[in-house]
């Protein structure tokens, strides 16, 4: 087992961990934003991620078939991202309006169960659309590698890591500096006071869902390009893991979700080194259980109001 201390393995695993971690972080942001404002776990968020991935798939497949991607590969990918984000945002907005808003004043269990129902519903909608067969993202760009000695880094990995960090920074600035962002923070802190101050609470909540969904969609397209295989269940386990990441970092806390995501990714990558690889999922679930038992406020602490 001494090879574990091999520096090249460590660097490789760090990159692996940060790559999947970036994905977790992007999805986690959706959970954390919604929880911060509504105190509910959007159980169907994983399905929003999944729909985003399929949106990108549809766009790219269309481009490949029409030849557009041969002449404009970069543009194809950018448009695919946009298509995915639009689809997910619309879906997120619909979800909020139909499944969650009517239950805003219901006992706590009701929106959670509604979310579970929505999650199952969406999974099965997609299953019927694709007839339960897995789909494969077309190869648009050839994957290139950087080889430094024995270390192997893929440009895709760098793209995902930098891309997710960039999106997170943009989000953070948005929340801190813009008027809408301030309004979001106000609603998260005290909904009644915010509405008394003239903030349109419903609109802010809708915005929150849309932003979270768009980020998840971006993650979905990244996953599609990187792993190539997508199916209707792809949102389920990553959804739970991303929620773990959000809680790890401190629910409601945007930098916390980032941190939690990368931390979880690294934990999985290094965990595989020290235990049989088939236990990988136990790392995430185990962390979830442990964090919620011993430090439910997360690493950076929760950002939720006194309401609970």
């Amino acid at each position, binding site marked *: 087992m001494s090879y574990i201390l091999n520096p090249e393995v460590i660097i490789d695993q760090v990159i692996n961990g940060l790559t999947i971690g970036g994905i977790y972080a992007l999805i986690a942001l959706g959970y954390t934003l919604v929880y911060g404002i509504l*105190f*509910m*776990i959007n159980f169907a968020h994983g399905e929003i991620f999944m729909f985003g991935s399929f949106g990108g798939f549809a766009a790219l497949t269309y481009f490949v078939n029409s030849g557009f991607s041969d002449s404009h590969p970069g543009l194809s990918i950018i448009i695919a991202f946009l298509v995915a984000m639009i689809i997910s945002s619309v879906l997120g907005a619909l979800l909020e309006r*139909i*499944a969650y808003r*009517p*239950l805003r004043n*219901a*006992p*706590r*269990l*009701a*929106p*959670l*169960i*509604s979310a*579970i*129902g*929505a*999650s*199952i*519903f*969406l*999974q*099965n*909608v997609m*299953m*019927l659309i694709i007839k*339960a067969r897995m789909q494969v993202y077309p190869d648009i760009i050839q994957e290139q590698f950087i080889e430094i000695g024995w270390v192997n880094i893929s440009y895709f990995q760098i793209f995902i890591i930098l891309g997710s960090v960039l999106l997170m920074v943009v989000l953070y600035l948005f929340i801190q500096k813009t008027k809408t962002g301030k309004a979001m923070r106000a609603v998260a802190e005290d909904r009644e006071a915010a509405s008394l101050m003239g903030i349109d609470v419903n609109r802010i909540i809708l915005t929150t869902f849309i932003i979270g969904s768009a980020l998840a969609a971006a993650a979905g397209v990244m996953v599609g390009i990187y792993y190539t295989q997508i199916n209707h269940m792809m949102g389920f386990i990553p959804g*739970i893991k991303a*929620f*773990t990441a959000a*809680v790890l970092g401190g629910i409601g806390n945007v930098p916390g979700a980032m941190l939690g995501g990368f931390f979880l990714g690294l934990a999985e990558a290094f965990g595989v080194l020290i235990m*049989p690889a*088939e*236990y990988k*999922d*136990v790392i995430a*679930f*185990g962390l*979830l*259980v442990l964090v*919620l*038992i011993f430090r*439910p406020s997360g690493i950076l602490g929760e950002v939720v109001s006194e309401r*609970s």
Partner: protein
Amino acid sequence: MQNHRKIKYFFSKFRFPPTAFYIALFLFLILLPPFLGNYWTQVLGDIGIYVMLGIGLNVVVGFAGLLDLGYVAFYAIGAYGYGLLASPHFGIHIPFWLMLPACVALSAGGGALLGIPVLRMRGDYLAIVTLGFGEIIRIVLNNMDTVTNGPRGLLRIDPPAIGDFVVNSPFRWYYLILVGILLSTFVADRLNNSRIGRAWIAMREDQDAAAVMGINILKYKLLAFAIGASFAGIGGAIFAARQGSIFPENFSLMVSINVLCLIIIGGMGSIPGVILGSVILIGLPEVLRVAQQYRMLAFGGLLVIMMIFRPTGFIPSARRKMEFKE
């Protein structure tokens, strides 16, 4: 206007069917199998197991108000507990009747163990932690090959027997499961009307007020988990003995969600509701096997719709209805 009021009044009174109805229903159920044949009796047996699970989860979710999404873990403990000690796997063959109380103890222990760390959590966190716990159990069962045979599962599990009389046909299982349901209903009913049951109701409606009244919240939460789990333990043992083989994939999250669905749709906190939910969710798809692919789609949609329009379920308990009205 008068007629409208009269009708409303009539329906509001018609909540609990009289005892005679139950006896008639019971006789009907006993005489049913020979008319149905093997296959449908088997389906009824499947429904029956889920009814038992539903009654058990109802104790946790419906009575005590704790949303447990990892209920399948206790089902697995009961099933593997029996399977490991009553099959060629280790060569141990403890009789079913002796194993039943053992499975109850094992699952109840598991329930208590799960209960301890989650005692102080709020509702949605509790749900996710229990979900995680359920998944951990399944993965561990799949990976600990030396003990559980991993994905290859346990085969040739002993059926229950009394001397030469072996319970190994759909008919015989049907009656065994029927007895199981009756017992479970009996226990659940007694619980509901006991001191424990009343403590749970108080806890469920307003935890802080209950604590102030002197109810030991921690103790009753633990009891809820443990007692609810024991039902699943028995269900698991029955499942293992009946199917004759068990695999880790029999104990996925879908089972927990199925049981939860049938309580929610049938009616939280009410036993007739659980039975109705089980018939709808488990029995109907067998009838509509052609529409199999739409089954889960319908469940998902139904959950959302029920929460918005009828959160107490189709046949709610009277008390629950009152709670929701407040």
